[in-house]
């Protein structure tokens, strides 16, 4: 059975993939459907959804098109979610793998370093980092990555610690495989499931974290994002529900889709198709 067939066996994952594809298509087609900047004021403010042609989601407090903002925002939110998760994995996985595999002093040193990041509340650190580096997409991605790698390192370390004493790892040592090969070929593939699940959740948290930053006014002032839209709508939530509802729904669907896809990937990568267990 090929990879996709195995992936598709999980119905939920297929649904997730469809939602995710739609969101990506949305992000790609944004400049075509709404060639104008989403920041431009195009109608009177507080126009409810479906009232006027061309404004299916109404307009916001300044008369900007909500639909345009949502489509353009998809790109930024996805980009920030995926890239920051990728960066966090690039930092966290090797660190955790080395700490867990070698143990001893190296483990102690790396874990103290990790704890150094963990003792500062995530969000507070992210705010400080963005404030210092000036708000921009790059600085937001970096800040989010820097606050979210420690749990990855911890998780990978724990997996490696329990896997390194398995008999098949010992067998690999016995046949003379190098430490690098053992880490990459023997242990890492077996530690993939929890990493994938965690990564899909991290993309979701990253999108939420970006929303929170934008909400506080620390978003990139040049790009529209879902978080910014919700943040700007907070004061008028009772008069204009649609301003926070649509971006909120978009975040919810993206997060849900990512979790479903993550679960499906995990199944597809596992040769035993672990979902069959009763």
């Amino acid at each position, binding site marked *: 059975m090929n990879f996709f067939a195995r992936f598709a066996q999980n119905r939920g994952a297929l649904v997730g993939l469809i939602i995710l594809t739609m969101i990506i298509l949305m992000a790609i087609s944004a400049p075509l459907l709404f060639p104008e900047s989403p920041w431009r004021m195009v109608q009177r403010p507080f126009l409810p959804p479906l009232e006027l042609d061309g404004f299916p989601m109404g307009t916001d407090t300044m008369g900007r098109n909500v639909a345009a903002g949502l489509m353009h925002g998809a790109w930024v939110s996805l980009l920030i979610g995926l890239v920051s998760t990728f960066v966090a994995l690039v930092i966290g996985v090797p660190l955790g793998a080395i700490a867990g595999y070698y143990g001893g002093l190296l483990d102690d040193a790396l874990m103290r370093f990790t704890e150094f990041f963990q003792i500062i509340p995530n969000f507070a650190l992210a705010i400080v980092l963005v404030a210092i580096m000036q708000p921009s997409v790059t600085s937001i991605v970096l800040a989010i990555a820097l606050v979210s790698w420690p749990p990855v390192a911890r998780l990978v370390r724990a997996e490696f610690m329990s896997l390194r004493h398995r008999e*098949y790892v010992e067998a690999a040592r016995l*046949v003379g495989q190098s430490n690098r*090969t053992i880490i990459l*070929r023997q242990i890492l*593939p077996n530690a993939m499931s929890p990493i994938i699940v965690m990564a899909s959740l991290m993309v979701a948290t990253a999108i939420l974290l970006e929303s929170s930053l934008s909400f506080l006014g620390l978003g990139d002032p040049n790009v529209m994002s879902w978080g910014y839209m919700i943040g700007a709508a907070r004061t008028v939530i009772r008069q204009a529900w649609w301003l926070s509802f649509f971006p909120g729904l978009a975040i919810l669907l993206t997060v849900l889709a990512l979790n479903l896809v993550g679960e499906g990937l995990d199944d597809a990568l596992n040769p035993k198709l672990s979902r069959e267990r009763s």
Partner: protein
Amino acid sequence: MNHTTDTPLLSLQGLTIALPKGADRAYAVENLSYDVQRGEILCVVGESGSGKSMAANAVMGLLPKGVRPVDGKAIFADQDLLSITEKQHRELRGLRIGMIFQEPMTALNPLMRVGAQISEVFEAHGQLNGAERSIKALELLTEVGLPEPEKAIRAYPFQLSGGQRQRVMIAMALALEPELLIADEPTTALDVTTQAQILDLIIDLQKRHGMAVMFITHDFGVVAEIATRVCVMRQGKIVELGEARDVLANPQHEYTRALIEAIPSDVVPEARGAETDTPLLDVKNLNKVFRSKGGLFKPAREVRALNDVSFSLVKGETIGIVGESGSGKSTLGRCIVRLETPDSGLMSLSGTDFMTLHGESLRRERKRVQMIFQDPYASLNPRTRVGMAIAQGPIANGIPKQKALAQADDLLELVGLANTADRFPHEFSGGQRQRIGIARALALEPELIVADEAVSALDVSIQAQILELLEDLKQKFSLSLLFITHDLRVAAQICDHIIVMQHGRIVEQGPARDIFLAPQQAYTRQLLDAIPGRPEATEIAS
């Protein structure tokens, strides 16, 4: 309880239990009928997957989810156990039917004192008051022969050994004097000497209380030791049912015969003598101490796993290292393949000092000594295709990938698994996986193979096949083998020399025949006597 003996205590009539869809067969057991008479020990024997435990689980109302009885009856004390309510079932459990499980390590609650766990049995059935319960618990612990019962009653399970925990389990099962005791492989996880003691205890208690015992096991040795009657099962069906004596001495069905023949016999093959006198492995005064760091409230612990161990192995020879758990036999094996580093001593492999090697030089020399692991499920990477698993060794040692994979194909054919290289480990049975493990060890053409309990996780018939394969390969490649096992009989079958270990020391060593037929040390004799079913086995053999 003066029933006439001809009404059986428990009667299974045409019991059929369905497995969930997608299982390897439709029914766990099919049309199963047997009786358990009062005061007898019925042994239900079969290999793994034969459904031998299923009937017991149905009787206890402990069938796993998705598995349900579809036909037949289980009559116990005039009621059909399959049709009574869960509440009625709960009242029977413990009170009239007791059960002992296989794993004494996990069957007890680790956070509860032993005494409290026994008292709980009375509590569950609303019997006695608090003080009486503790007194009764103490009596029970005394009866099952736990040393220092006053102390044991306050102990937590982790403070007791495996055998002692099994005694506690038995005490719990006996607490309410059940009429039927179901014992599901109660001695499988124990050492031979402990097993012998527990078997004696069960026989003794059975006689004293006049209970019926349904004893589930895979081991015909145990059957010979305790059974009144035997029921042999295979793939959910009864193959043979009869008096233990008749079945053992004169098995009717060929499967029973095969099972009995598969027991390593007491007939020790003639000494073969090594083909050469070239010393291959020379071990001198090996020591290894495991230290656990002490904490604020616990003292540091030291375990002497190896204490001045010396022996040597000639090329083409097979040495068996025999001992109970904790004897240091596995540590010795792991030191020799250098998964552990000994603290002191000398170890040379055809002249090279194998002990001081480390880092890159060790990695390069590793291929000279390979290992076959105990657990065929844990020793293969679940995400690596078996061909690749075998080829990894040669690839790591610089052989091109294509060639290594081709070699892996040949090796798989050699161990009887042709054309399976692109499958994943979970598609194989335990015995097949062990063959893959052997192929992997052979792939590097090692000078010495260490087999650590390589057959103890397997069913007897599979065990016999794997031993045959090893014997075969030994001839073909003139392998030198270090065979670590807890089973003296297995060692006697395959080894030229045997080393008996206890508490990290070598107690006795010599030619297999001498050790087995004329042991010099008391400990060796004790090990031999503890082997279940020995007298009968000798009878059959002679």
